[in-house]
């Protein structure tokens, strides 16, 4: 009994909100509580989920990467651009992901070597990457159909959509990195106590660069999945995702201080945001109100979390 109780308490507050919100939507709309809708939610959540995994790694180092959304859009554009030039689709994908790894490396180098606030450095990068995407497409989206997309976007394996499988794989990857590798230990150390790392003979600079490059890689994968869903290179498809990913990560209990948290909580954070969006659509709330509602939920969750933290201190 006690074990269950402590385990329930260990869940981030966002998981309770999740249950509450599902109940509210189910009561508000008879169409809401259905298997097909939940399947929809999962599929909708996937690209943001993967971006949020990347953002979680960055936030654990006490940073934020505001270029992640731009990187996702860039990947869709780059793949289509290369494919139209005759590069095989698969090769284009690999090149695009390598480029996001490069973008991440540059981000990390600026942040670590220049000792520049991460949000400033990555904000600059966001603008640069966005501009490149717009240049390559002359500002509009470029349609590029392929059967390969269907395998990712529409096929299922064991009744579960392939996209969800890919997302699960990415989760396992990031979870293992954080929990089972030296690199992951160092990521936590970067956020927790950089001097301790240096004194143990670990280079904070190298590891910070690696973390941003790793985030770039994950964003690249998110970009491929996004392309498979939208079947075109869209220079603004993922704009704002970096902030939603920050919100989801914070909702999931990862702290901007001290390297606290992890990627498991982030799942709940992303699900919450996606479920709210999906529910608001189903009950017919106009999209101009949706951002305000999501913003309020993010603030509420963070305030609740803060109150719990203050209470536990008293």
């Amino acid at each position: 009994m006690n074990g269950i109780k402590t385990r329930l308490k260990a869940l981030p507050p966002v998981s309770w909100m999740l249950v509450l919100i599902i109940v509210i939507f189910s009561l508000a709309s008879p169409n809401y509580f259905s298997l097909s809708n939940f399947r929809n939610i999962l599929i909708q959540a996937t690209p943001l989920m993967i971006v949020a995994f990347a953002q979680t790694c960055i936030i654990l180092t006490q940073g934020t990467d505001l270029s992640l959304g731009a990187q996702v859009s860039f990947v869709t554009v780059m793949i289509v651009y290369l494919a139209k030039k005759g590069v095989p689709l698969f090769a284009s994908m690999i090149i695009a992901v390598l480029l996001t790894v490069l973008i991440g490396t540059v981000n990390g180098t600026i942040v670590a070597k220049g000792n520049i606030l991460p949000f400033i450095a990555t904000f600059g990068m966001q603008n640069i990457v966005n501009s490149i995407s717009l240049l390559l497409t002359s500002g509009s989206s470029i349609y590029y159909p392929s059967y390969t997309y269907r395998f990712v976007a529409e096929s299922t394996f064991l009744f579960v959509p392939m996209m969800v499988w890919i997302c699960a794989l990415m989760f396992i990857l990031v979870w293992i990195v954080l929990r089972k590798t030296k690199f992951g230990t160092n990521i936590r150390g970067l956020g927790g106590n950089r001097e301790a790392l240096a004194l143990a003979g670990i280079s904070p600079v190298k590891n910070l660069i690696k973390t941003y490059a790793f985030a770039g890689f994950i964003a690249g994968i998110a970009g491929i999945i996004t392309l498979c869903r939208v079947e075109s290179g869209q220079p603004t498809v993922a704009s704002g995702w970096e902030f939603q990913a920050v919100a989801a990560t914070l909702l999931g209990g990862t702290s901007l201080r001290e390297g606290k948290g992890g990627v498991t909580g982030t799942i709940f954070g992303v699900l919450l945001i996606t479920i709210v969006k999906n529910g608001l659509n189903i009950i017919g709330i106009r999209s101009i109100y949706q951002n305000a509602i999501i913003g309020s939920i993010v603030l509420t969750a963070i305030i609740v979390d803060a109150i719990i933290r203050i209470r536990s201190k008293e």
Partner: protein
Amino acid sequence: MGKTILTAVGITKVFPGMKALDKVDFDLRAGEVHILVGENGAGKSTLAKVILGVYKQDEGEVFFEGEKMEVSGTKDAIAKGIVAVYQEFTLIPYLSVAQNIFLNREFRTKLGFIDHKKMESEAEALLKSLNCEYINIKAPVKQLSVAEQQMVEIAKALSYKPRVIIFDEPTSALSDREAESLFAQIHNLKKKGIGIVYVSHRMEEFPKIGDRITVLRDGKKIATIGINDCTDHELITMMVGRDVSQVYVRTQNEHKGEALRTEDLSDYSGKVKGVSIVLNRGEIVGIAGLVGSGRTELAQLIYGINPIKTGKVYVNGREMMPKSPVNAVKHGIGLVSEDRKKYGLALGEAIAFNAISVSLKKIFPKFFMNKRKIYDIAKQNVDQLRIVTTSVHKQCKFLSGGNQQKVVLAKWLNFNPQIIIFDEPTRGIDVGAKMEIYKLMDRLAAEGKAILMISSELPEVIGMSDRIYVMHEGRMVDECKRGEFTAEQIGSRMLGLGVGGR
């Protein structure tokens, strides 16, 4: 005593604007504890860091087992078996105890992943050898107490199987009992032939563990002597460079009426349970108690840092609800916090900034500030408190601990509060600075200020206080006047033991 394992010859290290070490010689034998003492800024830490390879010396050489050491960075020093237990913790808050101990030397499975099981069993064995099996090795170190973290820090050092360990003020975070068990560990390490460099201010510890003492002053080596070859008095004189006949200065003053009173004060955490105290003007009142007895929490309640559950606080006879430090300051209460780096100073800001930070409104009642005036006030503080610095524009993080504490004091002196709470006012600072702080406290009391002093150093409480309250597990268990108490009495009351008939 074993043979010499480490020798430093003619070490000189120059920092911009100061010579931190000036041709210092030092040697360490296997199986000895070599204590390094000196005032803050005397060069103890710099010497330790040269040995550890954190700093590169400008002149001189270090030999390890007869061979010249060419180290750059702690990694090389660690590889040779020279490790340190730092005063500032070098733990990562949300990694487990085991992960922290084996940071950068993680055990791996065949697949190359971290082997948590093996790491945890090794960590468990290490902590057991330190008699600390109660520490949960799976818990993030953030959840441990300061003392437990210190033990983890020591376990980490031991896990390198070192030949030389440098302890930098290891007991500053420990209670007396924990310190005793640390000393027992140090004795075990000695028996194993490990050479130990022990940096400390606490003179009462020296005879318990030390073999030889090296005194540094202003970057120069003053002497290296056997532990039994000098008296405390001689040692202090060597450190400070002048004769100091008495450490504690307390001129009796008349008490001029009540300044602060609490009635049945309790907090939400249960660390303070129904505490009533009275503090008069012109009086220094000490609060004695073990670490965790609720001393600091009491101060935080009065100062409005933590909310009050029940009870009342009166300032000058009028009830005051301590809602926040802002409110406390308005009522003329100042707090010299036990953690000056966290609560006392803006470390990245200049001395002048910190010195006037509380009194801005007082100094500049109108809208604009005047740089010249700030400079003059700060300059006056620096001269009066003898803060060692090249300029009042120096950032506080570059000052030594004692000088930082003086800046905190300057901040309050400028504000001129009527009630001042000193929480561990001399933690981690050297004898010279300590004495100056005692003098200042005495002077403040003479000026009619009411002073509440919280300290875990019993000699300090006894030496300075007109009255002492003893706290034990959140309750006030005793109160006695100057001259009515002995150290043994108060010590036993702190442990919760009764004193004959009471």
